[in-house]
Each structure stands twice: as C-alpha cells, then as structure tokens.
C-alpha cells in the first residue's frame, strides 16, 4: 500500500496511514488520490473522504472544507474540521444548519462576501447532515 494519507485539522493529526486509494471531495468534484499521480493542490468542499484498501472502503471521514496536497506517494489533507463518519451527529448538524439559515435570512442582500462564505458553510453543513443521516442507515 504505497499511498500515505494524512488528515490534519488545525488542532491535531487525525490520520496518518498507508492506503491504496483515497477519494477526496474537491471543490469541483470528487478526486481520487492514487499512487504515482501528478502533484495536485486542491481546494476541498465539505464532504466525505473515503479511504480504500483494495476495493473496500476501510474508513470514512467527514471534512468541513480545507485543502489537499497530493503527490506520487502522499496525500495530505488540511481540513478545517474533520471527524470520523461514525462520530457525526445529525441532530447537532441540523441545529447548526438552522442557525446558519437564520443568519442567511438576516444578512444584507448586497453583502457578497458574507453571502459567499455563508453559502459555503451551509453547503458544508448540509453535506455533513446528509453524511450523518446516510451513515446511520448503513
């Protein structure tokens, strides 16, 4: 298993292990990190990072946006926040989504930056909620 994957959040390193493949949620679509790929720097949206050993997914992590640095032998994910999928809480995500949507309704219509930021946050929390609910049923 020649690909070394690291998932680090500002507070700590969550994952540092060898896998066969990792699928990461890029801003413009999911991208798989595999051994011997060309170096790529990627901005992430809120979504699920799936770690593969062979054809099987061994672990799923939810990352709330961030960056990834991929190379021939490594894939480093700088996550704004990261959590093991099984530890996600749908209720907590739902609460946060509600808060964000209230803020969304209150902001100035021509404040483009805040709109941008909020819509990204809302998207990320929606993805988290989806992941939490989906994860519970699997």
């Amino acid at each position, binding site marked *: 298993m020649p690909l070394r994957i*690291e998932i*680090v959040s*500002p*507070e700590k390193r969550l994952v540092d292990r060898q896998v066969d493949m990792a699928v990461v949620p890029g801003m413009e679509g999911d991208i798989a990190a595999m051994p011997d790929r*060309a170096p*790529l*720097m990627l901005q992430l949206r809120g979504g699920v990072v799936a770690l593969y050993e062979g054809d099987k997914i061994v672990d799923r992590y939810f990352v709330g946006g961030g960056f990834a640095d991929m190379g021939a032998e490594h894939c480093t994910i*700088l996550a704004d926040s990261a959590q093991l999928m099984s530890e996600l809480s749908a209720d907590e995500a739902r609460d946060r989504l509600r808060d964000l949507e209230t803020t969304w309704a209150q902001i100035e219509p021509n404040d483009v930056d805040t709109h941008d930021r909020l819509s990204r946050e809302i998207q990320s929390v929606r993805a988290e909620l989806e992941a939490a609910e989906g994860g519970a049923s699997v």
Partner: protein
Amino acid sequence: MPSLKELRGRITGVKSTRKITNAMKMVAASKLRRAQSQAEAARPYAEAMGRMMAELAAASRGSDASSLPKLLAGTGKDQVHLLVILTSDRGLAGGFNANIVRSARQLIRTLQDEGRTVRLLPVGRKGADILAKEYPDLMVERVAGTEGRDVGFDKAEYVGKKIVSMLEAGEIDRCTLIYNRFVNAMSQIAIQLPLVPLSVAENDNVDTSADAAQYEFEPDEATLLASLLPRNLQVQIFSALLESAAGEQGARMTAMDNASRNASKAIDRLSQKYNRTRQANITNELIEIISGAEAV
C-alpha cells in the same frame, strides 16, 4: 523588637503563602505539559500549510505584485501598522507580560518616530489593561485571552478575520504579531513576527525542488491562494497563541518556584528571629530573678 506573638503570626502567614505558591507551581507545571502537547499536536497542520504556501507562492511569483492578494504582497504602502499583542489574562507569571509590553512599547515608539500610524489589537487582559492606559487612542479592540484554558482555533480565526477585514477596508497597511516564543520553562523570548505582508520568500528558496513547477492547481492558483492565505494567517496566529500559552505556564511555574523558595528563606529567617527573641526573653527574666535575689 517585635513580640513573640507577632513573629508567630508572621511565620504562619508566610507559611500559608508558601503553600499557595507551591500549589500554583504544581498547577502551572501540569498545565504546561498540556499546553506543550497541544502545541505539538498542532504542528503537522502548520508544517503542511507552510509547504503548500511555499509551493503556491513560488507558482504565482511570475505575476506582477498588484494582482497578488494584499495579504501576500501588502497594500504597497507602509503607513498604518497594526500590532497584535498576545499576553496572558492572569498575572503572577514573572516578567511574562512585562516583556511583551516592553517590546511593544519599543516598536510603537520606533514606528511613531518614523511618522507612521500605529494601531493596537491586544489579545489577553493583562497587556490590554496596560496598553489601554498608555495608548487609549491607538486601541482597535480588546480581544479576551484564553483565561488559562486550552487555546481554541476559533480565537485565531477571529483575530485573523479581523486583520483581513481591516486590510481589505484599507484601514491598515502592515501587521506585526508580538508574542512570547516558548524556549523552555525558564525562558521565553518576545518575538515580533510580521504577518502582513507575508514573508514566505525565504521558505520557497529552500523548497524549489524539481517537481515544484509541475504542480497542478484546482481551482487555479489565484483562487487557491486567495483562500489559503487567510487560513495561513490564522494558523500563524494559532501557533503563536499556543506558544504564548505554553510560555505563560512556564513563566508562572518559574515565578512560583522562586516565590516558594523565597518564602522558605523568609520562614527560616523569621524562625531564627523568633528563637532569638524567645531566648532573649528567658535570659532577661533570669537576670531579673538573679539580680533580685542578689539584692536581698
């Protein structure tokens, strides 16, 4: 000469002070261990961030300065300086806060002598109190410190966003962070770290490896750089906050260790005085009795 009762009282007083300083030392020592391990845990992120920044800065070096984000290249002016000053919320940490304030004061004076405008953004109550008294017109905002608890990334995020919004609004041209770098429990060094414009120039010289040029970026360099830069700023502030938190506990530990030792010395001195006085009293009484007996 103080009476025996007074001396006894003082000895008990100093003893209870020693008990407190000793307890504070122990607490600081365990908090120091925590703070150090937290700082260690945060290092991989900062390192990876530094690597990415170096790659990106190298890739976008070709473009001209005016198109680069202000965080990287500055505003092109050098008039208004923002100083972010990290101190602790609590005292009893030796010269920890005084060092920072002294360093800040020096920088403020130099900048003002050069005719520049200085604005202050202190984080932590101790520094804010002193600086607000000395430079009330320069204060931007007081940010509460961590109150001895674990440093959260949200604090760094808040300060980082504040800096970016001031920069975007054209209120500041440069930004410098002043904080205590943790060396060991005995010593912390006051550091002045320029945050804006960012100094990656020296990193990327080291990092210009053969594959650096072949990096692909998604989205393009400029967009990626624009979102990576504020994050990088926050990470720098976060690691400074962690260093400062560890330094605070180290400084407090040393200060309290000294205080305990001084208290022990004071107790020794007082006990000696107490014994002497007691002996003198006894001798006096004896002399009185003997001379009384002789007189008869």
